[in-house]
């Protein structure tokens, strides 16, 4: 059997017979009319492609493709003698105004359901994975404290949180998903925005408030656009800011909050809206929680 994926949904195949390497209950492939039709079509197509390639004079140089990239695990810096908080700074790159949130003395995790901004163990919360409009489940593979909540890979970017360390990357499949299930970790998928310092192109072209989870200067930060931006401009601004890796976080009117220290007084900033529609029963967040300090 040359290709073990060569099977249709209406077929079965007995596996492992020694005398017949794979006993199949269907006609051999070479006795099917479509096999020969496909063979002829491929031959014709190949001839056409070769002639087109030969006739074209192109100066294009092959661009390296960005596939299966993941960052090194980044552990939060936690000083238990200091309180958990979020450092906030504003910046502007390519006319894109951005706010950078750096959680300090706090450990990341995921949660399903709206976190309470009055919970003073939480310092930062952003909506993480998207919700499917058809069945209201989480879009893409999602692991919550080792429990697989949903499958899928419609978005290639991912964030894995294992032993409190965040890894961002892009891959169709990654062993980090399994590792997250085995080590009571967390995993979700989103659009990849920046990989290895290079901006990644994504399909959505509309403008909206944008949020991202980024690896920047060796630490994990979240970045929000201050105005409506296209995904392209936001991603390019992140790359130009010097972000090493970044994936998207739910944008537009997505809910979130952060707790900061201002002149020794705690301050809470809330953005977005809490939705009550049943569609949002699996609304989910990446949050940073103080580690017992």
């Amino acid at each position, binding site marked *: *059997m040359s*290709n*073990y*994926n060569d*099977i*249709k*949904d*209406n*077929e*079965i*195949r*007995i*596996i*492992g*017979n*020694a*005398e*017949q*390497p*794979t*006993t199949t*209950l269907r006609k051999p492939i070479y006795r099917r009319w479509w096999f020969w039709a496909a063979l002829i079509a491929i031959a014709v197509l190949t001839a056409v492609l070769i002639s087109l390639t030969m006739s074209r004079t192109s100066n294009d140089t092959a661009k390296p493709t960005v596939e299966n990239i993941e960052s090194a695990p980044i552990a939060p810096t936690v000083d238990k003698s200091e309180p958990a908080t979020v450092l906030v700074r504003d910046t502007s790159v390519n006319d894109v105004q951005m706010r950078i949130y750096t959680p300090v003395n706090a450990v990341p995790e995921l949660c399903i359901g709206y976190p309470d901004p009055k919970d003073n163990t939480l310092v930062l919360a952003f909506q993480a994975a998207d919700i499917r409009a058809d069945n209201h489940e989480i879009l893409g*593979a999602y692991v919550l404290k080792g429990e*697989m909540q949903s*499958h*899928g*890979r419609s978005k290639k970017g991912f964030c894995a949180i294992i032993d409190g360390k965040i890894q961002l990357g892009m891959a*169709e*499949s*990654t*062993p980090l*998903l*399994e*590792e997250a*299930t085995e080590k009571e970790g967390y995993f979700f998928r989103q659009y990849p925005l920046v990989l290895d310092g290079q901006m990644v192109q994504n399909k959505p072209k509309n403008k909206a408030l944008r949020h991202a989870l980024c690896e920047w200067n060796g630490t994990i930060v979240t970045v929000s656009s201050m105005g409506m931006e296209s995904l392209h401009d936001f991603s390019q601004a992140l790359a130009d800011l010097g972000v090493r890796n970044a994936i998207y976080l739910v944008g537009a009117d997505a809910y979130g909050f952060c707790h900061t220290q201002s002149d020794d007084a705690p301050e809470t900033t809330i953005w977005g809206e809490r939705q009550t529609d049943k569609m949002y029963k699996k609304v989910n967040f990446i949050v940073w929680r103080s580690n017992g300090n």
Partner: protein
Amino acid sequence: MSDYLTLSNANELIRIPAESLVFIASEGNYSDIYTRDNEKRTVTIQLGAIEELIHKQFRTDGNLFVRIGKSLIVNMEFVHYINPAKRQIVLSDKHTFNFSLEASKEALRELKKYFEKEL
């Protein structure tokens, strides 16, 4: 026959006794492996690759597993009930587990014929 199905990647190795393997379901590039103790384990191996491993590792004791369409590999020892019209196949040892799965009518009709031939 090897007593175990061994799955290995860069990070880890998993050995599953053949007699405890009930079925394997495809989830795109991942596969979910269900065992007799009602446990599910997700691995980052495509179903086709697992079929190849079963073929190679259990080669001398064939006819134990069947690939049903694109999405399932089933241990035939545990096939308890097939109803092609309802597109239903039930895997059970009548003791510890009972999995009701869905497959195409045509595939289940073929599987039913296969078991009937064995009579």
